[in-house]
């Protein structure tokens, strides 16, 4: 098992290098540069422009800029934002808990609803329940996030007034950010109202962001369960006199989870991408909103650093999914 983990972890290095190249190349292919963006509509005189370009090191050959960038990254220095002059890493670390909290809740929703829904649909296949679950999940999967989020806001916030429209918490509440996770921090503050407020702010973004993963998990679980339920070992389990519930939740589900876990890992990418839209619509102060803002300002270090860090998170999540895969599926451990 340890060898398996090490082999998998070794694959992280080339992937990471690949991402740094991509990120670096991508941002330099976009027309315009940071100095132009900084100067705004009034423009600036060529001498000052040249001086600034030189100051930022933008006049050096691309590969020098890249190697310089890589060297800095490996030393943990992602540079400073051109617009705020704050280190990219510290900005990221301040904002990331908000995104993590939202993504975590969205994934939790997807699993808590998607897995049972998929299992039920498979066990009750070709019934009204099955068709309902699959129909609803297809609709959810096809719904563009920005549209779905607006619909949710219109219904629950504007018409019914049940939930707040945007932000993470009411401005009335003020407590020290201990962990950066609003739910935990508000609990730590000991103020029940603060926790309630944080929770109510979280509900709609969670639904908006969690719908697509939920649909994917439900459909994947259903098809994996359907396949597994036909397997010989399920018949063996039933012939042993094990209760139906145990056959489904232990013998069948354990095998069906193997493809589902893979899909869950892939959904983390979808979550971070979806977070950009969700955070923008709900004014959620996370890295999605931060990145959109940085792209608009051509804030190279922020965009580079933000994408690099997001990509690294996805790599790490996929690594843990691979390891988890090995835990669930004993055949993987030795064969690779």
């Amino acid at each position, binding site marked *: 098992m340890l060898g398996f983990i090490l082999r998998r972890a070794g694959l992280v290095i080339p992937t990471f290098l690949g991402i740094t190249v991509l990120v670096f190349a991508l941002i330099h292919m976009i027309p315009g540069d940071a100095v132009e963006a900084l100067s705004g509509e009034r423009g600036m005189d060529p001498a000052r422009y040249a001086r600034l370009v030189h100051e930022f090191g933008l006049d050096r050959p691309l590969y020098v800029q890249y190697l310089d960038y890589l060297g800095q990254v490996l030393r943990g220095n992602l540079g400073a934002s051109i617009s705020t002059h704050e280190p990219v890493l510290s900005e990221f670390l301040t904002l990331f808990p908000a995104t993590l909290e939202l993504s975590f809740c969205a994934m939790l929703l997807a699993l808590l609803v998607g897995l049972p829904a998929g299992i039920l649909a498979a066990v009750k296949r070709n019934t009204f329940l099955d068709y309902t679950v699959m129909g609803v999940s297809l609709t959810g999967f096809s719904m563009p996030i920005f549209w779905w989020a607006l619909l949710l806001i219109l219904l629950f916030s504007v018409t019914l007034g049940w939930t707040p429209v945007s932000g993470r918490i009411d401005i009335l509440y003020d407590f020290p950010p201990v962990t950066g996770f609003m739910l935990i921090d508000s609990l730590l503050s000991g103020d029940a109202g603060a926790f309630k407020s944080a929770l109510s702010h979280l509900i709609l973004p969670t639904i908006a962001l969690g719908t697509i993963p939920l649909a994917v998990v439900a459909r994947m679980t259903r098809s994996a369960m359907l396949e597994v339920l036909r397997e010989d070992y399920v018949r*063996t389990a039933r012939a042993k006199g094990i209760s139906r519930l145990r056959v489904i939740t232990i013998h069948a589900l354990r*095998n069906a989870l193997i493809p589902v876990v893979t899909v869950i890992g892939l959904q983390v990418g979808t979550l971070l991408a979806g977070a950009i839209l969700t955070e923008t619509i709900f004014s959620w102060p996370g890295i999605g909103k931060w990145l959109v803002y940085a792209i608009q300002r051509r804030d190279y270090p922020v965009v580079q650093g933000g994408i690099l860090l997001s990509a690294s998170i996805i790599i790490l999540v996929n690594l843990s999914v691979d390891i988890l895969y090995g835990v669930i599926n004993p055949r993987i451990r030795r064969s690779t």
Partner: protein
Amino acid sequence: MSLLEIQNLRVEFGPEKSPFRAVDNLDLNMEQGEIVGIVGESGSGKSVTALSMMGLIDYPGRVRAERMTFAGRDLLGMPERERNSMLGKDIAMIFQDPMTSLNPCFTVAYQLMETLRVHQGGSKKELRAQALALLQQVEIPDPETRLNAYPHQLSGGMSQRVMVAMAIACNPRLLIADEPTTALDVTVQAQMLELLLQLQRERGMALMLISHDLSVIAQTAQRVVVMYAGQVMEAGRVPDIFNAPQHPYTQALLASLPEYNVGRERLKTIPGVVPGQYDRPGGCLLNPRCSYAADVCRTTRPALSTTPATSAAQVRCHFPLGSDGLPTGHVR
């Protein structure tokens, strides 16, 4: 009271109005400690019969019978909880393909101990000791290590031994072995049969041996039931049936054994295949493939009747074969 009594079992699939009968009008009795062989080509309803006894025929399949009891308990009407308490304990089953019959996600120990835990309970330590003893009884080399193995680390023969260990874990009164040797190497087949017979003798359990291989049945069973297209064609004691088959189908099956074809260039075969849902013939189900078929065979389905020749035997034929191997009272 017989251990197992089945009267007029029907297993149907497909639409209610024109169902496909995988098993049709099947009668079967088994006594305590008896070995009964069920033989027939693929698609003759052997496995479906066994699965219907275990309650493993799922909707939309339908199982009906006038009577289907095990030790006096009604197998058809019993609630699921009661059935589960009986499956794996009083009736156990092993399957054709051992490599896919064990759950790939769990160790041998887990799967063995699960059966024991469900039916008798006990501490983890006791269960593990019992599991180890079971592996020793099925003669698995190095059982201590095998306990922690996953199914993909076992060979086919080893997996089937684990399946057998699991099946005998709770001392069943009836063991159903559905083609237990078919997926195994020839060298392992004989060992597996020997193991099954030995366990049957030691424990006095009844053994239902399902096979398409007549020679397997001949070596092991006391009685044999020959099935074709979901019906019993012939049933009786093994020596009677193998020496003097009364049904043309049994005769043809025997004639296609390599042992009966020594010196020939090609093995004798039975032309055609077992009829499926859409090509079931009228009259006797065998008539398109029977070399003796007469007009009455094409119009009237024969009943399963006890024959005067040997009182223990039953045959479903208008013209049962005589001791000379030729049909009696036959008019073409």
